[in-house]
């Protein structure tokens, strides 16, 4: 059986038409299942966990990056596949990276059931699928306890497992969530054009474990969850099965 987890915002009036179209399409495709609507203050953790314990076939997140990030943190290590129906134009970068189209078109991806097993990154006790990032201002990085990094210019620190579609990664860097590796990418503004894209200088370093220190800022995981520093980041042993689209970013 499929279980659809509806985030709170998709029940708003402005998405009523979209959701009706999605439900009709799912019925046409024979993908009906149980619908769980998450309330504003409801604990999504216990709801999803109880469904996982019932031996269901698939969990489908209906929402945006915030929805997916929460559900990934509950499903990390589970063999039950996760499907995604992204609703709304904003905050749907994770679905785009996985090659999943918006709204009704995502139902076709669910139907195709193209499943990939992807590694997750871990930042403190949280998991992330795509990347964790923080502004470089006031940030220092300690890597594998062997060396530390200071960043002089303004920019951004990213630890990437799966890049977003609009990320400008240097061509020589192969970023994939299937390779059990995370890439540390430091983008700073200014400097020479060579070795970098038009606007940034890129620094790229492989690592096993790193710690980010910053007294004022938090690490942003999956464009959705905020985690306090110091943040210890490493590749997790836990994986997740995800239904992906053809036009994915790996």
């Amino acid at each position: 059986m499929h279980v659809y987890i509806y985030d709170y915002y998709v029940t708003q009036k402005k998405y009523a038409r979209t959701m009706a179209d999605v439900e009709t399409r799912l019925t046409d495709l024979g993908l009906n299942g149980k619908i769980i609507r998450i309330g504003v203050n409801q604990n999504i953790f216990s709801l999803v966990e109880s469904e996982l314990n019932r031996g269901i076939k698939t969990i489908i997140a209906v929402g945006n990056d915030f929805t997916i990030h929460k559900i990934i943190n509950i499903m990390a290590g589970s063999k039950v596949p996760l499907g995604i129906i992204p609703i709304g134009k904003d905050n749907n970068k994770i679905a785009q990276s996985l090659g999943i189209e918006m709204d009704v078109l995502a139902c076709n991806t669910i139907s195709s059931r193209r499943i990939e097993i992807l590694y997750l990154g871990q930042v403190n006790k949280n998991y992330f699928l795509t990347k964790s990032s923080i502004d470089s201002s006031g940030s220092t990085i300690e890597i594998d306890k062997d060396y530390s990094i200071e960043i002089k210019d303004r920019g951004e620190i990213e630890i990437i497992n799966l890049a977003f579609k609009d990320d400008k990664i240097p061509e020589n860097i192969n970023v994939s969530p299937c390779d059990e590796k995370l890439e540390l990418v430091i983008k700073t503004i200014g400097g020479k054009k060579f070795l970098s894209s038009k606007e940034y200088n890129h620094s790229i370093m492989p690592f096993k474990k790193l710690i980010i220190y910053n007294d004022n800022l938090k690490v942003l995981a999956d464009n959705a969850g905020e985690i306090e520093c110091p943040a210890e980041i490493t590749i997790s042993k836990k994986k997740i099965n995800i239904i992906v689209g053809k036009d994915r970013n790996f």
Partner: protein
Amino acid sequence: MFNKQQNETMREAETIIGLSVKVKGDFTCQGNMVVEGEVDGTLKTHGDLIVGDKAKISANIEAKNATISGEVNGNLKIKGYLELSSTAKINGDIDVQSISIIKGAILNGQCQMKQGEEKIIKNKE
């Protein structure tokens, strides 16, 4: 500016230390490396190393082959070929198999060549 070999090293680089970044400590890498920023400590790679003209390294360096265009305060141990470009400044000893020093490079230290291929090309214009 870069020859074909150097372009290939840059394209296949596993590690890039950019202009605004300073690394402090013992840095070890398996693949090719490009340094444009600062390194303080030790720098080891099993691959090739390119040091850009704005780079400042205060470290002992070990690499398979290397092209240096910036400043290095430390000893270099290069298994194969070392090229010092016209903007290179080396304050330290060099242990290398073969070396090319372009006119304008500064070398303050001893140079030990391994037995076998001993080729020193000085004042190349």
